[in-house]
């Protein structure tokens, strides 16, 4: 099979998977009242935007994710870089970071709630806390990988200062990994925000889904879930494609 034919098959297959999911959904909606049809769900989605309730929820979730993700990036990269570059920091805090990386961070949400109260601050802090560790851990690993290679010798032979090493050596060398970290960080921030909203929030898509479930308003619940999935999928896919483009073996 030629490369072009293969690409065509893969694209067709990927489209086929989406079709299959939609067909399964349609079949399920015929079989049980618990699953509303595709049509009513899309109608609800459109209505939701026209009436404004969905837009408000979307805005709240987007803000929580954006703020949390932003802080995670702003703090996670420098933290990861420092851990990777400084032996003292690495030795002292490696186990702490690796340990916190393994802990399901969502359990800190009640603590955040009791600090900040229910609202945007607790939610975005939750998103930041969740995304911070994957970003930091992956950055550290990438920096250490570079440090083991031949590049530090090159840097030393050229007499690069710390800032030059960061900008000219480490940042370009770890860029592909940083893209992976961004993608994972985004996903994790989104999940964290949604779960946080399920648990306790004043606004947001998670809250809307939980409310719709409580009222057994199934089309509304499905509409909200569809919107969340679409956001996560689109964001993830865009970052994944950017990542493939940046990776050394090309996309």
């Amino acid at each position: 099979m030629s490369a072009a034919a293969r690409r065509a098959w893969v694209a067709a297959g990927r489209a086929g998977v989406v079709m299959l999911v939609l067909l399964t959904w349609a079949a399920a909606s015929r079989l049980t009242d618990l699953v509303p049809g595709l049509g009513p769900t899309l109608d609800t989605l459109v209505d939701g935007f026209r009436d404004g309730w969905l837009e408000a929820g979307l805005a709240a979730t987007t803000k929580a994710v954006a703020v949390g993700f932003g802080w995670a990036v702003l703090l996670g990269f420098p933290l990861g870089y420092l851990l990777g570059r400084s032996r003292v920091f690495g030795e002292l805090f490696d186990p702490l970071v690796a340990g916190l990386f393994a802990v399901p961070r969502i359990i800190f949400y009640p603590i955040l709630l009791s600090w900040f109260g229910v609202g945007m601050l607790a939610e975005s802090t939750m998103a930041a806390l969740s995304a911070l560790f994957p970003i930091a851990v992956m950055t550290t690993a990438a920096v250490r990988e570079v440090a083991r290679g031949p590049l530090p010798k090159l840097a030393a032979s050229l007499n690069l200062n710390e800032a030059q090493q960061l900008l000219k050596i480490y940042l370009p060398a770890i860029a592909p990994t940083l893209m992976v970290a961004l993608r994972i960080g985004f996903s994790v921030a989104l999940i964290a925000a949604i779960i946080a909203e399920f648990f306790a929030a004043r606004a947001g898509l998670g809250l809307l889904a939980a409310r719709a479930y409580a009222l057994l308003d199934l089309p509304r619940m499905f509409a909200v879930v569809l919107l969340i999935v679409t956001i996560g999928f689109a964001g993830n896919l865009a970052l994944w494609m950017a990542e493939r483009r940046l990776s050394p073996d090309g996309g």
Partner: protein
Amino acid sequence: MTARPGSTVVLDHVGVTFAGAGTHTEAVADVTQSVPAGCFVSVIGPSGCGKSTLLDVVGGLLRPSRGRVLVDGTEVTGPRRDTAMVFQEDSTLHWRTVLENVAFGLEVARVPKARRYERAQHFVDLVGLRGFERHRPRQLSGGMKQRVAIARALALEPRLLLMDEPFGALDQQTRMLLAGELLRIWQGTGASVLFVTHDIHEAAYLADQVWVLSHRPAVVKEVVNVDLGRPRPTEVMLEPRFHELTDHLWQLLRVEAQKALAGEARPG
């Protein structure tokens, strides 16, 4: 060690064509040639000419598109128990120790454990790795890894040994050293050998005859008999006859290499 006679190999109009994405690449055109029992044959040719493909066919790893290969009169349809192969790339299994690597072929052939390790140990000693039995491949140099691969092949006590540029990835000194040792060990086995290389000195030093392959698609352009006698110490390389032979091989190869270059330079 019991020295059983080596296999007779007959290549009967062997041709290999790779079907790719809408294109067909003819790797081997038409090779009809035979390896007499116990004979050491070197195969040389310009790079990418299909030497390794030919070896894969004889080893039963690749079915020829045309023609057939007979080993001791039976057609090769898959890997044979009495044929062993050594490859250019590192083929050690990195999770096994040296001894376990050498015993691998015997293990696959379900030789009982005690006998398997006894035999493996014998060949570990033979290739000069005594003391490294419990080492892992990553602790060894490239030359030592190839010794492991050779010992693994010999442990099967093959009647036909197929070596695909086994020293290709090694430095010059290690190559010459291992070539000398290979001759010493091979003389005790009686096995027939097909040895692919791109080094004309190595080819002439080791072999009874050298097959010079043409540029792809490969045909045997000439068979050069190496009349240097056995046993053959490394000093043979200083003799005038050795130089005549290698000069001749070099001339043959140069013409083919130039054809290969011209072929590559052609657009499209």
